[in-house]
């Protein structure tokens, strides 16, 4: 009768010499499963993965998700396969209450594990970094001084077909969005219209609390912080409509803080922007707006104070003039 601690007990009742090659068995099952899963992910899932290919940043995000899924699938399949294999092959037989074989280390297994996991982590680091740099921040807000920028011409006036970068300021406030176009006299709109195949720079800011500008189909998401210019880049690749949502809980109407967006031809955009600029110039909106700036201090309203502020006793809802934190009725 053998002791439970003796190597002879390894593999249950199977003599050690006749132990099957479990590693090769597992590999033989794992390889075709992994190849099949990767093919399905790449050729079936990838074209339908969010957020689509409406813009360069969206297409890069879709590509990233597909590559990461292909990278993860063999690992997941390997773990699950080993788990199932262990349960089926190495489970305790009925009536066998012996201890398992003591393990004294296995250089081959340890080396495989360390090299494999290191390779995976290194791959993710390199891939993630490249995919952050190449699409100029991948559609995310890079803060006021972006490191990775989109190529294009920095111009004071935007011209169709000239690869000029279109500057668009996104202003969040409870609970609506406003978009300003500094290359069109600082005109503003509640609809985000953009030209196709044009490098676009978003300058995202807020007038009150923190919001988040999320143009899902464009693959752009950037926090809108008061007094901060958060810059994000993209280039729309198709014409069509999209929706902008707020992605930062900002009060009762957060869920309804949406606005419409349209990507149109460059000439149609030019016509639209020029028409809005002309209308806002004619009705006085442009002169009523503050001078275009990357951020605004809503507590500074220079026009006030020149005349009516000297009228004592005016009592508006919040007291005629409000501070940033706590408007007090005088």
């Amino acid at each position, binding site marked *: 009768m053998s002791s439970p601690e003796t190597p002879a007990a390894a593999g249950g009742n199977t003599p050690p010499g006749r132990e099957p090659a479990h590693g090769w068995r597992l590999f033989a099952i794992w390889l075709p499963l992994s190849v099949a899963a990767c093919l399905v992910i790449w050729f079936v899932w990838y074209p339908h993965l969010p957020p689509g290919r409406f813009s360069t940043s969206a297409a890069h995000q879709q590509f990233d998700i597909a590559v990461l899924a292909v990278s993860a699938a063999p690992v997941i399949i390997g773990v699950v396969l080993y788990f199932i294999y262990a349960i089926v092959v190495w489970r305790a037989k009925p009536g066998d209450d012996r201890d398992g074989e003591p393990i004294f280390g296995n250089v081959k297994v340890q080396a495989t594990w360390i090299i494999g996991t290191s390779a995976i982590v290194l791959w993710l680091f390199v891939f993630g970094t490249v995919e952050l740099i190449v699409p100029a921040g991948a559609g995310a807000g890079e803060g006021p001084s972006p490191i990775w920028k989109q190529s294009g011409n920095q111009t004071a006036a935007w011209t169709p077909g000239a690869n000029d970068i279109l500057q668009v300021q996104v202003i969040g406030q409870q609970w609506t969005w406003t978009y300003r176009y500094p290359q069109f006299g600082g005109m503003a709109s509640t609809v985000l219209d953009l030209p196709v195949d044009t490098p676009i720079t978003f300058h995202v800011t807020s007038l009150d609390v923190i919001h988040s500008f999320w143009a899902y189909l464009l693959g752009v998401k950037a926090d809108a912080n008061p007094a901060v210019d958060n810059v994000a880049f993209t280039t729309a690749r198709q014409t069509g409509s999209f929706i902008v949502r707020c992605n930062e809980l900002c009060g*009762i109407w957060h869920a309804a803080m949406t606005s419409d967006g349209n990507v149109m031809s460059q000439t149609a955009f030019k016509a639209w922007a020029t028409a809005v600029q002309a209308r806002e110039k004619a009705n006085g909106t442009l002169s009523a707006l503050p001078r275009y700036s990357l951020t605004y201090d809503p507590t500074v309203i220079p026009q006030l104070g020149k005349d009516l502020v000297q009228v004592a006793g*005016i009592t*508006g*809802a919040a007291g005629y003039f409000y501070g940033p934190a706590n408007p*007090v009725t005088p």
Partner: protein
Amino acid sequence: MSVTARAAALIVAFLCVVGAGVFVAVYYIGAASQLPTVNYTASGGQVSVALQEDPGNNSATRPSWVTYYTQDPTTKQWLHTTLFTVPAHTRVNMTIYGYDGCTPLRNNYFSQVQGTIGNTVTVQQFNKNNRPLGLPLTESLINSWAHCSVGHTFAIPNIGLYVPVASPNAYNSVNNLCGTFPCTPTSGGAYSLETFSFMSPGPGSYRWQCLIPCGGGFLNGNGGPMQTLGWMTGFMNVVSA
């Protein structure tokens, strides 16, 4: 304590927490549902809606909050609610009485009238004796920064409707704002009368709000009445005509 007793105690505690949550939710939902909805019906393909915004209100708990009132089209009584119903795809003729004083817009872009028919409003101001201060004016912009002439706004962002509501004449309203709520033209306060029209959209619920941060005493002026149905925000329910 046995394992069974512990389990039972845990289950009872869990049910108490869930029950308290359900009670609070039902209580508040119930409270919200008590807010009356004013039904406006079309006549001749048009519907007339009347609102007023006041510097205070006649509630027992929050009398200092600014608020909108909605007029019952049948009784002509002003109801303390911001829920109203209009038929779909119908011309809505709005009348808003502005009894509250001026407060500047945080974003002066919304001084521009947008989404009304003609992108204009008609404004007339009255003094505390209910005498008009000039003729009605048609405006496409009421610059809240230049003349402190806007009290609140009426905005339905999802249909692109943004209307600055004129305040009473600033000089005339000094110490002369209405003090009895809901206000009336003869209640001793200066006011403005603003009218405009827009086409109602398809059936659905459309939130409307004021874009002036008029929640005095709250962070950024956007708490309190700005975030409470029945005060400075509400729903326009659009039903099939």
